[in-house]
């Protein structure tokens, strides 16, 4: 029941929101339902934690061999929890932002949440594809309707990228479907497909490219900085906090178990690409003059490390990936909240126009410093454990890879501290002279994020235990 509710609550709320007339109605509805979804998720983790509550199965498109099968395993729980926590934070932190026809905005946002939940619980190939698209399509509209100046061009680019990915994946899915003896999309049947090496070798790429674009890893990443920059920040948070995890999740759930031989064969190539991406994105981040673009490139570097750690296929690396999916989501949302708070207040995100905010807004400064150090994985922040385990996995795979990827942690310090310095320190500029302290929702949401960073940084064990089963299954 739990996974069904996780999808239905935001879905129904999203549909309702289209019909809300008042200005604030959509907003209130979205906040209420996202909190309700979080409550369901927490109940599912703490009270109704028997597996009977975590699976749901009805017949759906029987003629196509697809059933509406959804279920929560460890990784699913982790990512649903991330989604469930993130949406109330995102909605609350951007609560005071004004959108034209805001009920539609929130409706689309909620539909995205429904799609994301669906992706993380789907146990049927076609269903997965359906939710994948459900999560993406509202984002096109959100970006093209409510985005920045260059939104049309950027949405188009984003669309082309992801659409090509989706098409390739669809072809791959159909291929798999025809390969199953009973013509089915059920995950069990797909897992039991023992494809010949040659079949794996090409079908692997159909899926991988789709997922690589979504993550994104080098060189499939150029949609991302633009999309992050041009989308309304609430959408950027969804994109980078949760949606990029779809790519990583999908590799772990749909790619590696179905194409184990190809994953082993091309693993090294992908790890190399990921590591190139880490260094490449980090270096570019050093030269950015825009808060949002810097965070975007920083995020590409982080995702690169996760992707590399996945393909090491050892337990320690995979555990790091699991943990980091959650931590990265929380932390990057925190960074976006700050970026948005600055932009809403001062109307600029350019480093050259910022500076001296520590004098004007000390609370913002403290929270940004905490987030910045979480971004560079300082110990006792949540990101440290994940990175530590992932680097460990990478090291066991290949010493040199770990050493080269490790340069990324040095560069991360460079660009992150650049950002901190240029935003917070030095003298105020004509723009930042009149800056005021953050308050209300923004402050509380950031405080909440900060607390999570520290709590999971000091005591990560519950999170590690949550995804044990998934890692076990993957290693096999």
């Amino acid at each position, binding site marked *: 029941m739990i996974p069904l509710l996780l999808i239905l609550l935001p879905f129904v709320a999203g549909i309702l929101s289209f019909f809300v007339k008042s200005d604030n109605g959509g907003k209130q509805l979205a906040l209420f339902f996202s909190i309700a979804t979080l409550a369901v998720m927490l109940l599912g983790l703490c009270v109704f934690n028997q597996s009977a509550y975590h699976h749901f199965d009805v017949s759906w498109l029987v003629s196509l061999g697809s059933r509406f099968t959804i279920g929560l395993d460890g990784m699913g729980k982790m990512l649903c929890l991330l989604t469930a926590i993130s949406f109330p934070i995102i909605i609350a932190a951007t609560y005071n932002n004004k959108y034209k026809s805001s009920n539609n905005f929130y409706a689309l946002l909620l539909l995205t949440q429904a799609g994301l939940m669906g992706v993380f619980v789907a146990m049927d190939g076609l269903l997965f594809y359906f939710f994948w698209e459900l999560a993406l399509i509202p984002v096109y509209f959100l970006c093209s309707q409510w985005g920045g100046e260059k939104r049309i061009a950027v949405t*188009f*680019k984003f669309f*082309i*990228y992801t659409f090509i990915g989706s098409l390739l994946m669809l072809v791959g899915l159909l291929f798999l479907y*025809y390969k199953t003896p009973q013509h089915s999309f059920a995950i069990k049947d797909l897992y039991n497909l023992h494809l010949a090496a*040659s*079949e794996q*070798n*090409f079908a692997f*790429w159909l899926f991988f490219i789709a997922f690589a674009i979504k993550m994104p890893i080098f*060189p499939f990443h*150029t*949609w991302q900085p633009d999309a992050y920059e041009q989308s309304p920040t609430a959408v950027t948070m969804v994109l980078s906090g949760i949606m990029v995890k779809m790519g990583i999740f999908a590799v772990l759930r749909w790619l590696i178990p179905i194409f184990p031989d190809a994953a082993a064969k091309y693993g090294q190539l992908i790890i190399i690409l990921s590591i190139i991406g880490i260094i*490449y994105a980090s*270096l*570019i981040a*050093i*030269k*950015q003059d825009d808060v949002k673009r810097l965070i975007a490139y920083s995020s590409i570097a982080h995702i690169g490390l996760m992707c590399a750690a996945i393909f090491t296929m050892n*337990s*320690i690396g995979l*555990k790091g990936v699991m943990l980091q999916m959650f931590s990265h989501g929380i932390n990057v949302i925190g960074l976006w909240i700050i970026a948005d708070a600055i932009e809403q207040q001062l109307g600029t995100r350019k480093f050259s126009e910022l500076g*001296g905010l*520590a*004098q004007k807004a*000390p609370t913002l400064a403290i929270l940004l*410093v905490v987030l910045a*150090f979480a971004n560079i994985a*300082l*110990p*006792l922040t949540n990101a440290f*454990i994940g990175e*530590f*385990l992932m*680097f*460990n996995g990478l*090291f*066991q795979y290949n*010493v040199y890879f*770990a*050493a080269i990827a*490790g*340069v990324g*942690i*040095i560069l991360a*310090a*460079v660009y992150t*501290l*650049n950002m901190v*310095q240029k935003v*917070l*320190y*030095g*003298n105020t500029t004509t723009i930042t002279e009149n800056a005021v302290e953050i308050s209300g929702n923004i402050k509380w949401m950031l405080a909440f994020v900060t607390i999570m960073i520290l709590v999971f940084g000091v*005591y*990560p*064990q519950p999170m*590690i235990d949550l995804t044990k089963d998934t890692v076990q299954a993957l290693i096999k």
Partner: protein
Amino acid sequence: MNKLVYLVPLFPLIGFLINGLGRKSLSKSLIGIIGSTTILASFVVSVFLFMDVKAHGASVVTAFNFINIDTFKVAFAFQVDQLSSLFLLIITGIGFLIHVYSTAYMHEEKAEHFGRYFAYLNLFVFSMLLLVLGANYVIMFIGWEGVGLCSYLLIGFWFKNNNYNYAAKKAFVMNRIGDLGFLLAVFWLIAKLGTVNYADVFAAANTLSKFDVTAITLLLFVGAMGKSAQIPLYTWLPDAMAGPTPVSALIHAATMVTAGIYMIARSNVLFSMSEVTMNLVAIIGLATALLSATIAIKQNDIKKVLAYSTVSQLGYMFLGLGVGAYTGAVFHVMTHAFFKALLFLGAGSVIHAMHHEQDIRNMGGLKKKLPITHATFLLACIAIAGIPPFSGFFSKDEILAAAYAHNPIYWGLGVAGAAMTAFYMFRLYATTFLGNFRGTHDQEHHLHESPKAMTIPLIILSILSVVGGLIGIPEILGGHHELHHYLSPILISEKAHHIEHSTEYMLMAISVAIAALAVIFAIVRFSKKPELKDATGIAKAMENKWYVDELYDAAIVRPLEAVAVFFKNIIEKSGIDAFVNGVGKFVNYSSRQLRLVQSGQVGNYILIMVLSIVIFILLWFYDAGIIRLVDKFF
């Protein structure tokens, strides 16, 4: 008793939280009291722990499982043993004095920033205590990065000044380079031994291959280079003087920068197994000691002289480690903590009196106006110059004797460095305190001795600088070297010195004589006629730190930035992005063309439909064939 070890880091953490959260509402005096008493409380507990260890030996106290995955575990555990208890005393003892000193030194700050300062300082002590208390390399690393964070925050404490911010960032980034080495060493240990606990690692050390041990110790040493400012990662430390002076005393002289020495001493079982690493440690240490001593000779900023002196003294400690004199190195950490903290605090007192003047060319004759500062500073100078029976003599002598046993050339160079140390310290002393006052009239008018909160720590530290060496009197001078006995369960004792007693006496006499000559020369040379003119020739190169910063800038920073710009503008924009946009344009174009197909003529539609069906059927039949075709490509 040892269960109380939690309290040691806990008190400063509480202080950090109270001062950090209450910095806007608490009064300055309350902030100062909270900041200082928490450290005092830790010191008291540390004393008890020290007694306990002395009586009952070492133990490990586990708090909780930090990371527990089936393949390996990391416990949040504390190591209470001889080495850590000694460091606890140094950190909390000197830490407390510096907190007290800070209450007066930072008094000009607004309450809010005063609170921020003490919060950072408490957080630093907390991290430093974690670093030395951790019972495994991961906890050590947590403290290791934590002190780096606090160092960053405190160097850039006056954040309006962008030069300070650059210095802070430089310190953090250079430390990160070292940290990567540390991390890789930890990964290596995990890969080979599956554990990071000291006890388990050292017990299993002999199962490691020669290559593994060398690689692990070299990587650990890279970490130590960053934190303890050794060649090539030393240039951040002089810049770190941007921070408030008590911070320089605590972090950049007495405690944090000795973390590298602690780490190697802690891992002495591993290091002793690799001759390659040991030699490298000794050579790097010696080279750093000499290079920075030459730079210190020509510096005119009072704090810069002390900074290069610190780098140089750290080099001696590494020399000690490298020749196997672990106790000597730890001994020197301790005595150096006393006299270098004293020197920095004395410098702070001078800077305070001179209204933020740091250039010694504008000082002179401060002896009369600042009697306590002058007397304590002089004692510290004698201690660092290695004049017996002051503390620096014993620790430096122990390192030099071990160096001689290892290789007489090391000893010779070490003595040369010691002579330079004595020279630049007394150049500093003479230029600052002797002769006539050279500052402005206004400065002279306001010259005054610092308040008690500053002078009392100076006096306590000067006593320690004088007598601190007595716990390590070598046997040939009739002592028992208590420190050596105390640390012997942890540190492999150095190979028996194959030096005759007569030789040892002679070495001692030579080094003391040379140092004394250097002292006298410097006083004679600089007390009447200080160096006021700009340096030329080779002296200019020394004054400009041998242009190492410029070299790093040209060889590393700028090329890296050029690559970054190339990636950003060429590959990203004109390469990948242009390609993608090209695809986009193509799609756009072709869809415009394709629109023409939708002509509204049913016949065309049917034709296309039929064609498509035919293609599909063909594909259906030949799907195996297509797969084979695709095979060829993959």
